[in-house]
């Protein structure tokens, strides 16, 4: 069901339409994941359904609870990271608190990270941050939704730790030679969020408008926000 290929974005792709981009967050544009499109359900879908029904029957979960959770992942979580960073862009004191303790700062905005502990890392003219989980697919799901398939791919996981500049270039991100690349391996109990640099030309923008240029990829650090088309 999940593609393992390195379905990287074409250079500049992430800048086209950020609304659509964010909405498409969890969906692979090339591989339909609707289980009903391709014949009968597979073994995993049957097992998953059976488990849901058992949990409902035993009273551990309510009917619809899983569907609601999936809806949250699709429709709410993917936007929360951008909201948090947009606030950090307009409020330096909030940004300082976000850097000091990401979880507590998110709570100020009513964003509950559940079990996740968050380390926010800030891009500067001298340092660019990029996040990976080399062991699996650890990802700040309650801020960014489900990880994209490229984030889980062996290609990304193995290469971005070893040749980050080359991988970023494939995402269309060309960094100046003197910028230090700081790779974060999200391999255990922390989750990571990149605070990108706020682009010139966004002075006076509302948080809402700022959040629209904060695509998922900018918050993982594989691209940087741009105001092209805005």
């Amino acid at each position: 069901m999940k593609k393992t290929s390195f379905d990287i974005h074409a250079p500049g792709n992430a800048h086209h339409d950020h609304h659509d981009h964010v909405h498409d967050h969890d969906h692979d544009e090339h591989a339909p994941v609707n289980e009903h499109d391709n014949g009968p359900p597979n073994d995993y879908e049957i097992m998953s359904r059976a488990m849901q029904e058992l949990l409902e029957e035993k009273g551990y979960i309510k009917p619809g609870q899983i569907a609601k959770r999936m809806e949250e992942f699709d429709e709410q979580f993917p936007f929360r990271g951008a909201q948090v960073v947009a606030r950090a862009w307009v409020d330096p004191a909030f940004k300082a608190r976000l850097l000091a303790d990401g979880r507590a700062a998110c709570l100020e905005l009513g964003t509950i990270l559940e079990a996740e502990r968050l380390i926010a890392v800030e891009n500067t003219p001298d340092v660019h941050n990029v996040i990976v989980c080399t062991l699996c697919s650890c990802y700040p799901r309650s801020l960014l939704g489900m990880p994209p398939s490229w984030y889980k791919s062996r290609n990304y996981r193995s290469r971005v730790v070893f040749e980050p500049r080359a991988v970023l270039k494939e995402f269309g991100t060309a960094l100046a030679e003197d910028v230090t690349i700081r790779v974060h391996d999200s391999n255990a109990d922390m989750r990571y969020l990149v605070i990108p640099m706020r682009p010139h030309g966004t002075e006076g923008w509302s948080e809402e408008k700022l959040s629209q240029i904060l695509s998922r990829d900018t918050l993982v650090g594989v691209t940087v926000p741009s105001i092209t088309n805005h």
Partner: protein
Amino acid sequence: MSPSPLRNSAYAPAPGHRFNIGDRVRVKTMNPPGHRRTPYYIRGKEGVVERICGAFPNPEELAYGFDGLPEKILYRVRFLQHQVWPAYQGAMKDIIEIEIYEHWLEPA
């Protein structure tokens, strides 16, 4: 310019932590079987403690249905890329940071 100061931020209490921010540490070279959260590429490498994340149930025990107690102290350790990868082609000051549990660390 330094990527960022070593941060004095504990995310959860870390009672009795053995290492402090700024300490030089080496990741132990060992290959125990089972579920381990220390990737192979970082074993045997030397870095600096960047922050102390706190005490957490040991994921290497949780993975097998145990309670993960006693909790283990988790550190964020910073390494220079060219010391991690002999063939690293990027800038000399590029870094990689990774979470390492205390029982995987020894003083360098």
